[in-house]
C-alpha cells in the first residue's frame, strides 16, 4: 500500500439502499453543498444466447484498482469544483436487481456534481481492473463485456 490516503472503495456484496441513505445523511452538515449527483449501477437480467443472467460475480486486482480509483478521484477534484466525492464498488456475487456501483458527487452548483459524476463513471468502467462474471440460472457463466 502506498503512502497516499487510499479510501475504502470495495464492499463485499451488494450496496444497500440504507447504505446510500447513510451516505446522503452525512452531508447534511456540509451546508455549502447545493447539489448532489448519484449514479447507481444495478445488475440486469440480460439474456445471452437464450440464457438469463441471475447474478454477477465481481473480482478485482485490488491493489491496482485502489491506485486507479485514487488517481481518478484526484483528477475529478482537479477538473471540477467539488465539495465531496465517494465511490463504492461491490465484490463477490451480486444478484439481479441489486446495486454494485455507487458514485456520489457534491458541489455548490449542479453543473460540477453532475458532470463529475458522469466523468467518474466513465473512467471507472474503462480503467479500473474489475471483472464481472455473468452467472446464468444453470450456474454456467460468461465474462461480462462493458459497452464502450
Amino acid at each position, binding site marked *: 500500500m502506498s503512502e497516499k490516503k487510499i479510501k475504502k472503495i470495495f464492499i463485499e456484496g451488494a450496496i444497500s439502499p440504507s447504505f446510500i441513505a447513510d451516505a446522503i445523511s452525512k452531508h447534511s452538515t456540509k451546508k455549502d453543498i447545493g447539489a448532489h449527483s448519484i449514479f447507481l*449501477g444495478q445488475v440486469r437480467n440480460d439474456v445471452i444466447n437464450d440464457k438469463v443472467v441471475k447474478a454477477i460475480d*465481481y*473480482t*478485482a*486486482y485490488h*491493489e*491496482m484498482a485502489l*491506485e486507479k480509483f485514487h488517481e481518478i478521484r484526484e483528477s475529478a477534484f482537479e477538473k471540477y469544483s467539488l465539495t465531496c466525492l465517494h465511490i463504492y*464498488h461491490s465484490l463477490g456475487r451480486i444478484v439481479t436487481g441489486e446495486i*454494485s*456501483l455507487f458514485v456520489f458527487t457534491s458541489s455548490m452548483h449542479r453543473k460540477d456534481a453532475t458532470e463529475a459524476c458522469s466523468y467518474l*463513471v466513465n473512467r*471507472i*468502467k*474503462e*480503467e*479500473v*481492473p*474489475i*471483472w*464481472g*462474471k455473468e452467472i446464468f440460472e444453470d450456474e454456467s457463466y460468461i*465474462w*461480462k*463485456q*462493458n459497452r464502450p
Partner: protein
Amino acid sequence: MEIKILAFGIIANIIGKSEYTIENIYQTDELRKYLEDLYPRLKNLKYAIAVNLVVSSENFDLTNGATVALLPPFSGG
C-alpha cells in the same frame, strides 16, 4: 531471475491458475509470446500487462521479483 504472474478474469480460466512464478523471461513482449505459445486462446484476446501496477502498451523490461499482471478487458460497474 524470477517474476510473479497474476492472472485475472478469463485469463485465469485459460491458464488454470491465478498466481504463480516463472523464470527467465526478461521482457513483456517475450512474456506474451511465451504465454500465447502455451495457451493459444490468449492470441484471440485483447489483454493488457501491468508490471508492478503500471500498464504499458510498449515492450517493458522485467526485473527480478517483478509482479506482472495479465488483465483482460475490464467490466466493472
